């Protein structure tokens, strides 16, 4: 009995086959639900800092156009559509790459995406404390002219060297992992609450931003925090910012790196492909539709922000932040929701549309990033990649040791962030790593029709579509491979040409070492350990000859 037989169910619904009365087949979910699922997965509210960071790393980027380059995710969406229709199983790229290429590459690709999730929970914890709760206290301190409250906020907004941040973050992480430990039911309640808050926050934020303009904000800066708008622009100019500079290449690069990073995770509907009705319609709707929705969300957020705050101030803040010159002026990195305090001093609007709501949403978002990876650690243990201890569950069915391991990885990342900016460039390399994984996915797509002819031959029509006279999955595989290489190059570009090469070198080394060397070591240790247990790892994944 399984819902994984949905593909067969779809065939039955089409009237092409006859199933038994007691078939064990379920009716399955609608294409629209699949779309909703794909849209829920990534945390779109982080548009608030990507919009700032990308314009300095890729000077001259026009962000409203850069957002449109999220379309470069469509080839990968297509690959997931085709693969998920032919192999409707949980596990996503781990399954596809393992089956088509090798289990080793499947593990490497899956490992990178798993550890990205856990490390990002560490990063997000810093963001939640610094720019969620820290900025909340700063704003309230300014509104109520309460210096103690403002100082508390600036302490919490310190990116390094604050014990308060470390303690709060550690508690925050412990609470997150407690929710993960309690299981999916409780976790999903948090997710749903965060979803409602995301849209409420955007609505409130948009109303506030549309009700002001840069002149009002400039006056607000002066009145609330005694910051001179023109002086901010002048300081940024002195550091090399050129207002009105727009160029195509940085726009493309920003779009394909940071904008894409915001919606990574939209492919998750492929993980429930087996349970979706009419896979030929549902997967394209979910995979392509979610990307379109992200673009719409991002464009609205960007438009209202530019309308209220102005492009110049955002670009200037971005430049100042890249040189560490923003904190002396604003007393903390002025992430976009913080700027609301210059547009309105209504505490209710600030809480609902600003950093407080942002912090809560991102706390849940961080939890979401770790939830699936903890399950992956559990699965690796089953597959012999990690010791059996990590697949032990308690009476409630919770994988205690996998949860603990996930906590340690996230907490390590968070703690390093509290001490040193060593991994501050990490975010950029996350994209590198992600596309490294997708490079293998693309290769798997290219060779799929020949390397797994048995699966290809019985794949549904949606998978076997043709494009330019060749199997579409092959064409998109080639495009995806080229995009992967280009995006990896684009993320490394600031490193190649940046002034702070030596500062970024350790981050680059740590990122690649952890993601690529550690899994290789783990893989070979697992091979050795399994051999000692009597069934070699290779044999565990090798196909038993049927004939």
């Amino acid at each position: 009995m399984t819902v994984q037989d949905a593909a067969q169910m779809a065939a039955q619904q089409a009237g092409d086959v006859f199933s038994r009365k007691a078939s064990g087949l379920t009716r399955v979910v609608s294409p629209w639900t699949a779309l909703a699922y794909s849209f829920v997965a990534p945390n779109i509210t982080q548009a608030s800092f990507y919009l700032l960071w990308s314009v300095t790393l890729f000077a001259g980027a026009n962000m409203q156009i850069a957002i449109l380059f999220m379309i470069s995710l469509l080839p990968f969406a297509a690959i997931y559509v085709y693969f998920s229709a032919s192999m409707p199983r949980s596990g996503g790229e781990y399954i596809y790459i393992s089956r088509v290429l090798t289990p080793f590459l499947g593990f490497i690709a899956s490992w990178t995406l798993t550890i990205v999730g856990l490390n990002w929970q560490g990063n997000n914890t810093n963001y939640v404390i610094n720019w969620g709760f820290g900025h909340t206290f700063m704003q309230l301190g300014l509104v109520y002219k309460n210096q103690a409250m403002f100082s508390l906020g600036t302490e919490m907004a310190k990116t390094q060297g604050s014990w308060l941040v470390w303690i709060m973050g550690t508690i925050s992480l412990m609470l997150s992992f407690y929710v993960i430990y309690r299981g999916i039911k409780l976790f999903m309640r948090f997710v749903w609450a965060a979803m409602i808050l995301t849209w409420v926050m955007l609505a409130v934020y948009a109303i506030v931003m549309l009700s002001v303009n840069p002149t009002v904000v400039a006056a607000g800066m002066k009145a609330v925090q005694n910051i001179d708008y023109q002086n901010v622009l002048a300081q940024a100019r002195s550091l090399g910012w050129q207002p009105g500079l727009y160029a195509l290449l940085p726009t493309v690069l920003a779009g394909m790196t940071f904008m894409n990073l915001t919606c990574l995770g939209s492919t998750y509907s492929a993980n429930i492909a087996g349970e979706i009705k009419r896979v030929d319609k549902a997967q394209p709707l979910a995979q392509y539709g979610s990307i379109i929705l992200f673009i719409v969300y991002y464009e609205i957020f960007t438009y209202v922000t530019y309308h209220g705050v102005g492009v110049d101030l955002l670009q200037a803040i971005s430049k100042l932040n890249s040189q560490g010159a923003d904190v002396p002026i604003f007393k903390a990195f002025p992430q976009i929701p913080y700027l609301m305090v210059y547009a309105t001093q209504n505490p209710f609007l600030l809480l609902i549309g600003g950093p407080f709501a942002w912090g809560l949403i991102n706390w849940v978002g961080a939890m979401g990033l770790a939830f699936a990876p903890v399950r992956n650690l559990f699965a690796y243990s089953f597959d012999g990649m990690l010791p059996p201890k990590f697949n032990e569950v308690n009476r409630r069915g919770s994988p205690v040791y996998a949860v603990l391991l996930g906590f340690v990885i996230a907490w390590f990342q968070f703690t390093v962030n509290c001490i040193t900016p060593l991994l501050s460039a990490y975010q950029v390399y996350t994209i590198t790593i992600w596309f490294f994984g997708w490079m293998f996915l693309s290769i798997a797509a290219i060779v799929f029709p020949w390397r797994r002819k048995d699966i290809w031959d019985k794949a549904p029509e949606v998978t076997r579509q043709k494009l330019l006279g060749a199997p579409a999955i092959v064409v998109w595989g080639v495009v995806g491979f080229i995009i992967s290489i280009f995006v990896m190059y684009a993320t490394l570009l600031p490193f190649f040409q940046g002034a702070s090469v030596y500062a970024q070198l350790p981050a680059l080394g740590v990122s690649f070492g952890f993601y690529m060397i550690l899994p290789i070591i783990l893989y070979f240790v697992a091979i050795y350990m399994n051999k000692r247990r009597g069934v070699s790892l290779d044999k565990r994944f090798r196909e038993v000859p049927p004939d």
Partner: protein
Amino acid sequence: MSPFGSSKKIRLFFTTDVHGSTRVFKKFINSGKFYEAQVIILGGDMVGKMIVPLVEQANHSFRANYLGKVYDVADGDELKHLEQTLEDSGLYPIRVSPDEVRAFGEDKSLVEQHFAQLAKQRITTWLQIADERLRGTGIKCYVQPGNDDPYEIDEALKQSECVMNVDETVVDLDDDHQMISVGAANQTPWQCPRDLPEEELTRRIEGVAGKVKNPANAVFNLHVPPYDTNLDVAPELDPNLTPKLSLSGGFKMIPVGSTAVRAAIEKYQPLLGLHGHIHESRSAQKLGRTMCINPGSEYGEGVLRGVVIELSKQKLENYTFTMG
């Protein structure tokens, strides 16, 4: 005898829910040699779920429409290849005329009749393959029908020389370990042939468990997993058999295992519980001292999901999930 106890180990390979896939069944038969196991066990649900009509056309070619793909194949090798591909996925291809297809659509009892016949036929073919391959190897092969399997196949299962139907029996795996087997399940929403009320399931399990000499050293091969464990998690269904959704858009997952099985395991505390039934709930979990294992199933893709288990005299030495 060694003063430190026996170092003798027995290796088992367990799989389940092959659902008509000839490719997976052949792999199962070969698994003993491949994983160097002395005993191979198939935990139930051997028959497939669907008939795919190959409709004869005016030009004597055949047309099938499966998963949105129209197959137009010529009689001969092309047709045989298509039939084999469908069979390997657990489907039952049948050559029919357009009139016969219409009759199938109008009279559902015809589907059930054909289904039982096709299932029996395939089991018979499988057993011939098994006998050819296992004869003289010394590998013991135990199978049992699961809740999804019609009773018509039981007769076919008696024909084999090397494959033994162990449903509702006790067998000796070696000198130290016995195995009881029950293929029936608690009631499912699909009213499967061997679905039973929990009380009846309890009675059947007790009927065999009571005959075991040393339950603490036994293997309980019970198709349905124990209730409320990691082995029995499946989406909750509404009356239309549609999965219910959670607030976040995911599936609402609930335990669907058997309370009778759980009670039996908690009562007898055997060394090992072998289960299947819930394909997506691949897991291992201890209930007291008993390690309960469900290796899951991916029969539709021709993948043999299983678990290699090593038992020493009084201990489960290790278990290793496989994907072959």
